[in-house]
């Protein structure tokens, strides 16, 4: 890995761009984002457990077999108790938001965003979805995202924006009155925040499965090629 990284930085920028699927800044930001999202979700689950407002239990494997535990079972969560979960959540949020803002700025400055993610329309999504289900989708050039991919990534980004806005409404409903307004009041923000989290989890499952099916995409997101 060390030699690869050295080779990367040793190559002239233009040649490096042609050679790598993802530029270095993007790869770094992807993994910072992944770390922040995992920390946010696991600590968020611990915070959720303080009330478990949807009244569900989750199964956990113990020495006594499968046991159903209140809310999201403790082994799946981060923080140990509510106070710890809150500390993780409100520390990792800076990682998430700082990274996202930098990503937005660099995407605009490098003019990468529009050609990478747009245009994407319903026709191309249906076409590529059918192709994907039949196993006919090409992965010859992983530089180019197909329409389903584009939609999924755009969805994940929009979903994180929804999470941040509903999070702002929950965190600072008085100071961030705009966030409270956007979530139709304080209590709805809780449900929006939870739903957006669940949808992001669904995205992560699909995303990881797809990446494992085409392992070279994982290599490309680590080493750039």
């Amino acid at each position, binding site marked *: 890995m060390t030699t690869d990284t050295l080779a990367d930085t040793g190559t002239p920028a233009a040649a490096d761009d042609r050679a790598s699927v993802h530029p270095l800044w993007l790869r770094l930001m992807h993994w910072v984002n992944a*770390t922040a999202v*995992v*920390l946010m979700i*696991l600590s968020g689950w611990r*915070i*959720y457990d*303080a*009330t478990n*407002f949807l009244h569900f239990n989750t199964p956990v494997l113990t020495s006594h077999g499968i046991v159903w535990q209140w809310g999201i079972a403790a*082994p*799946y969560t*981060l*923080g*140990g*108790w*509510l*106070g*710890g979960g*809150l*500390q*993780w959540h*409100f*520390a990792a949020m*800076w990682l998430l938001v700082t990274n996202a803002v930098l990503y937005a700025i660099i995407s605009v400055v490098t003019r990468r965003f529009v050609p990478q993610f747009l245009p994407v329309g319903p026709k191309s999504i249906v076409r590529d979805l059918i192709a994907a289900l*039949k*196993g*006919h*989708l*090409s*992965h*010859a050039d992983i530089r180019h995202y197909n329409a389903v991919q584009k939609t999924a990534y755009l969805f994940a980004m929009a979903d994180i924006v929804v999470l941040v806005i509903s999070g702002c409404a929950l*965190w*600072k*409903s*008085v*100071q961030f*009155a705009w966030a*409270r307004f956007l979530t139709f009041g*304080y*209590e709805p923000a*809780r449900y929006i925040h939870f739903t957006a989290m669940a949808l992001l989890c669904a995205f992560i499952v699909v995303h*990881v499965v797809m990446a*494992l099916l*085409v*392992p*070279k995409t*994982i290599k490309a997101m*680590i080493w750039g090629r």
Partner: protein
Amino acid sequence: MDDRKIPDDIKKDREAILREASGLLKDPAKRRLFGNILTLGGLSIATGILIKDHNSVQTILNTMSRFNDGVQGTIFNPNSRSPIYPKSMINNPFRFNAFYQVAQAPVVDGSTYKLMLSGQIRDKRPWTLPQLYALPDQISQVTRHICVEGWSEIGEWGGPPLSVFLKMVGADLTCKYVGFKCADGYYESIDMPSALHPQTLMAFTFREHTIPTYYGYPFKIRIPTKLGYKNPKHVTEIFVTNDFPGGYWVDQGYNWFGGS
């Protein structure tokens, strides 16, 4: 599936994937790495759980929490008002919440009760309940009580703004903190700007009646711009200081500013 119908690039793609996969499995180093990638999610969960008890991580988390105190102090706008709700939205019964069961709520004798004052306050004479009840500018407010535990309820609290009292007793309003000690052993402290916020009340009443024991008799500091644990009940002493006083839950890890 009929292979003839599949475009060439996809056929090549399939071959490439297979070649790549077999290559990965042949090379032990790559195989190990591939295994690591597979368990990356599991690993991050495991490390997260492992490092949570680690002191240096706890130091970082505490530092971030103090950083968030500073950010919230900066964000705090003394002119921002907590929403006022119609009386019809008041939760009845309003939820009891404390670090003990409702039967353990302290019974304070109003006839002998005295509010003590200490710290950077000019006139530290104790106040009796009738004297407190005679404070001017009393209002009643229907606001949302937001609990850090993930629920909120609407209630109505009434009394004078804390700022009226602090000015009357000659508190040094340039100090950083206002602290509270309570009959149930609870203690809490808030920033001076929040203490001076016009919606921060010394709540002698709940739903326009004397506040009952379980909601904080003889009075509760009601701060609609802060989370529930920043609203101490059964207050017996108020002090003003520049030395960070902490709080019952804050000292265990809750965020000190706790603003909403």
